[in-house]
């Protein structure tokens, strides 16, 4: 028999909690070892002595003081929790608005980001849809513009050299208006104009 099982049998015998099957198992063990029974009897006596000698309940000294001290701590505990509870309630009352507010913020952020990221496109679309006859942007030279004329001796051939011109910007639309006038695009749908604008871009 396993050691754990025999220990359990001994413990249960001392406590008087053996089942009939366990009793027969223990009887077998007692037959094999004659010293077991007196040993268990002695163990039962010790158990009984402990039960008789040690009290299960002993009032703490100064029982009233014990309670008053404890209740003071409890009151402090309650007081320390009270403000945080109120705060929780305040936040809880606004919880219903968190989701719509968050959603609205997301939509606004999306549109703001979209406008900042592609200003030229929107300008282009606006200009095309309104079919303005003017230039989209104006070209201005820098202050250091200088021009010089180079000519041969008899004046048959001459060249003009210009220095200090700024680079042309990518979104400078010089062709739209002229095209519109030249090709007679006035009155065409905006989508068509937009696709043409993209082509030129």
């Amino acid at each position, binding site marked *: 028999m396993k050691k*754990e099982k025999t*220990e*359990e049998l*001994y*413990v249960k015998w*001392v*406590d008087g909690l053996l089942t009939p099957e366990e009793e027969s198992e223990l009887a077998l063990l007692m037959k094999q070892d004659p010293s077991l029974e007196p*040993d268990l009897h*002695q*163990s039962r006596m*010790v*158990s009984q*002595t*402990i*039960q008789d*000698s*040690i*009290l*299960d*309940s*002993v*009032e*703490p*000294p*100064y*029982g*009233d003081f*014990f*309670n008053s*001290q*404890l*209740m003071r*701590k*409890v*009151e402090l*505990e*309650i007081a320390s929790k009270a403000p945080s509870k109120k705060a929780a309630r305040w936040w809880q009352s606004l919880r219903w608005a968190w989701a719509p507010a968050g959603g609205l913020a997301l939509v606004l952020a999306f549109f703001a980001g979209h406008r900042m990221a592609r200003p030229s496109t929107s300008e282009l679309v606006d200009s095309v849809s309104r079919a303005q006859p003017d230039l989209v942007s104006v070209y201005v030279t820098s202050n250091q513009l200088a021009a010089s004329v180079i000519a041969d001796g008899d004046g048959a051939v001459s060249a003009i050299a210009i220095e200090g011109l700024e680079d042309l910007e990518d979104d400078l639309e010089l062709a739209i208006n002229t095209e519109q006038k030249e090709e007679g695009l006035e009155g065409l749908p905006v989508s068509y104009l937009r696709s043409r604008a993209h082509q030129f871009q």
Partner: protein
Amino acid sequence: MNFLRWGTSKMLMAPAEGSAHAGSSDQEVSDHQLIEACQNGETRAFETLVTRHRGKVYAMIQNMIKNEADAWDLSQEVFLKVWKALPKFEARAQFSTWLYRVTHNVVYDWLRKKKLDSSGELEDSLLKPSEIAAGATTTPSSVVRPDEALMNNELGVKIRKALKTLNAEHRETILLREVQGFDYKEIAQIMNCSLGTVMSRLYYARKKLQTLLSDEKGKD
């Protein structure tokens, strides 16, 4: 619910003071009714619950650590923890088992703070009377209480001396079984161990006590 609150409040008006088992109206209210009232924030109900159980908790702690002053403080700690944890307490659980589980944790935390040996076994030298601080006894002993009279009898002294030599786990198992009368399953729950461990601890603790007490007899 309101009826219950009203009922418990009415019944709790009188008995808060007095001994643990004294008030008859106190006993009319079950632990679970009191707990329900506590969960609704009634501190008066909690005081009744404390008065009802403080003796057992104090006795258990005192038998574990053998120092009245610390036992008093630790009992306070136990009940404060109980108050904090009461909102989570489920009615289907046995209150006494839960209370002793809290007591077990508080005592072991205290013992751990007082330095454990490296193997995890609790150092029994902590429990030697010579190691206990001078003046630790807080009770004025001009009048000997009945429980003290019983504790001071010869056999009681021998038993307590023998109990001191056990390690904390064995001592607690013996106290929970022999003194507090918990069954094996409840002891396993309180001590957070298996049923087999409880059986083994009980077996070895009894065996050791038997040997110690027979040695004492031999000396006499």
